[in-house]
């Protein structure tokens, strides 16, 4: 997979804020873990809140440092999502190809991102758990995991919508939706590593040059409108004030 340290020549490097969204248990954290650590854990416990990870991605012309927000999929965390996708330059919206409802949820996320995230955001729709579906037509799922040089055409790869055992979402359906909304589209397997690096490379390539700033790009310390805030942070005034009083002796 694309990793750091390959090229010693100083290439321009820039950081990209990326957020993962999607229903619970579709494999968001597993995708990240595969991308960052090249590791996979069976029966991973659900993420609580959100995890923040970084990983570099080497392109021929530049290095992209992904700052990844891996969010929890449970509904109760949904109200926190804007905090993570605000200012994000890229989003991975993940669904589980063995669970039809997860694609619906993904579509909701896409709609929300298009409505509320920054206008230039690059969105990739990712159908995960390909390993559960590939009984017969595995041959053409991908041209193999090793063309990681990821040209901008990576999304063109064709999956056959073979109706194998566990698959509930035909590739064609999801692909049609992705085309309609102008999303990048991949089917991946965090378990086997299929297409995982490709997704990130494709995103890195799709980020317009102009939106890339210095290494510590658009960080994310900006304020969010108060309306989301007031709903959750419900401490009494005194508590919120607490830390401010007293000196730092």
């Amino acid at each position, binding site marked *: 997979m694309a990793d750091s340290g390959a090229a010693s020549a100083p290439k321009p490097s820039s950081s990209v804020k990326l957020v993962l969204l999607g229903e*619970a248990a579709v494999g968001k954290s597993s995708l990240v873990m595969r991308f960052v650590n090249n590791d996979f854990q069976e029966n991973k416990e659900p993420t609580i809140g959100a*995890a923040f990870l970084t990983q570099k991605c080497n392109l021929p012309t530049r290095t992209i440092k992904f700052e990844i927000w891996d969010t929890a999929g449970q509904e109760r965390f949904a109200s926190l999502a804007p905090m993570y996708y605000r200012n994000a330059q890229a989003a991975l919206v993940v669904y589980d190809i063995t669970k039809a409802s997860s694609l619906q949820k993904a579509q909701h996320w896409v709609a929300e991102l298009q409505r509320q995230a920054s206008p230039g955001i690059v969105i990739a729709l990712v159908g995960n758990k390909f390993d559960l579906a590939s009984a017969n037509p595995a041959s053409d799922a991908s041209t193999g995991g090793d063309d990681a040089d990821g040209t901008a055409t990576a999304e063109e790869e064709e999956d056959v919508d073979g109706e194998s055992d566990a698959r509930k979402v035909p590739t064609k359906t999801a692909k049609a939706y992705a085309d309609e909304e102008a999303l990048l589209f991949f089917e991946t397997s965090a378990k086997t590593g299929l297409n995982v690096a490709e997704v990130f490379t494709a995103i890195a390539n799709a980020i317009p040059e102009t939106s890339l700033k210095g290494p510590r790009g658009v960080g994310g310390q900006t304020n969010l409108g108060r309306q989301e805030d007031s709903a959750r942070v*419900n401490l009494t005034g005194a508590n919120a004030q*607490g830390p401010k009083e007293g000196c*730092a002796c």
Partner: protein
Amino acid sequence: MNRLSKPEDLASLGSASTLQTEATPQSGDSIGKKDFATENSIGNENGASTATSVEEQPSREGTPPPLPPRPKNLQLLDGRPQTSGSLKVSRPSLQSKATTQLSFADTQSYSDESRDTISTDAGKLKSFTHLGKDRIGSDADDSISIKSFAPTIDIGGDAESLLGEVLGDQEKDVIKVLGKQFDGMSGLSISDVLFSEDAQFSQAFEHEFDEIEDMAADGSNEEAIVTQWRSKLKHFLILSSAGKPIYSRHGDDQLITNYTGVVQTLISFYQGMSDVLKSFTAGDVRFVVMSKGPLNLVAITKLVESDAQLRSQLDALYMQILSTLTLPSMERMFANRANYDLRRPLQGTKTLLSALADGFTRGSPSTLLTALECLKLRKSHRQVVNNTLLKTRSENLLYGLIVAGGKLVSVVRPKKHSLHPGDLHLIFNMLFEAGSVKAGGGENWIPLCLPGFNNTGFLYMYVSFLNLDSPTEQVEERPASSHGAKDEVAILLISANKEGFFELREMRDDLVEQLQKNGSIELIRTAVKKGRMSCTDIVPGSPLRHFLYKSRGNVQFTMPSFEPHFTSDLDRRRLLNLYHNLHSNIHTRPTHPKVHHATSTTNISLAWMTPLFELYCVAPITTSRTALAQAANKIIQWVRREEERVFIIGGAVF
């Protein structure tokens, strides 16, 4: 012995069972009589005060039978093997009614006052253990502020005389002789065996944490599954007040439906009479019920645990639910619809609840004592860490903690907010028991409610695990082998500011850099590697095999390593069984004994409670009482000497 399934045994079980209700315990016929007497006061809120004869009796409707009907499928209660844990339940007869209090009141109420006691009473106490002798001088620095507003309790003379009595030599000879006899009989050195073997218990415990198989579609393996389910030593059930299952440690919905139905029936039967079912026994199984607002929590155990102990475990589970949802939002959910399915908003919390539950089943000194353990560190070293925390503290920080393998290294907090042990327990459970945060790598930003602090709103916790070998590097790749390793160091920074991630992240970088510069990281690493001391390191030649010392004022405890005597989970559970027993005996109300000795055929143990501390210790049976008491005294002396190392006193306060 009590076969519930056979009708002729119902009677015997009925008499063996005890039902504790909120009102004073009553015998069956008194209920009957009084029900007739109070029939006309139905619906009268003040029923209890209208007539003297009714005083301790809440008004009731109808004429219920003395005990609730026992459905046939309650046979699960006795289908389980008899275990060595064969319940020896102490009945806290004066349990106050369920409140929202989240931990034992008495552990809280002593905060601060106890430290004072020692120094002011030092003169009087001299004769008993030279407590405080070498302490007084060092009170000078950070503990002064604590002392200054503490009331005093004069306990010196009392404890002394008590100890004097107990330590009389009358019985020790008998025990010695007995011990020798056993020695001779077994041919083994009896001092090596602390607990008598109990194959059934061992076996049950071994499989306690195995997952129950899934039910086959045709139900063919039902019997096997039910047997597995029943053989569990401990169950926790959480249901909504409408009877909807919310959580169960073992078994899926299909399996537990019947049982939740039964429990729900029992609970609502008493609620129907404006009474509260708190606990009951059936065979060798103890049931403790706790109703908290819209939730009913049930602990079912075959282990040695008292009601109060089970209740505090249920409290912890309840706090975990609040921590996920907050109290107002949970109440809102149920206000809209009484039969709301709470499992949906709780999605993903099951692992946390199960981690807590398994911790209780495995036995946790921390939960038993409702106290925390700290990493042993020199006072001056801890001071450096504290100062670094204060120096790098960022503006919106509420609490900052450094934790090493479940042991607190240092804490920074605002002056007016102390940390609730129950809250910390939840956090430690999330980070160190349930793998979800640890396994992910990277940094985490976790919204959570700390119910002990404020059960109405969320706080946000920044979590970063340190790679001790190169601390400035993020732990991005955590090898699989380190999963569950107990020596991981985490930095936790808690803020009320939802947007504070990057602020706290900066503080963390700053903090780690400073800690590395001033050598603290190295010291922490050394301390973590060293682990707990063994009993004989603490007091050379000590006959003690293990002890727990709880400083009541600090709500912290210390203990020696489980090795070499308690290496397996089973050994530890047996040790904890013993501690549970001691704990419940010494916390018996209203007598509140100060010293409690217990002797079995294989061990001799002591519980000793003063307003300052609780000490529980165990030694082989060959030890005399005097020797045990001396050893206990030595431990006390050691703790006094090391107090500022084994406990965090004050911490970094801003």
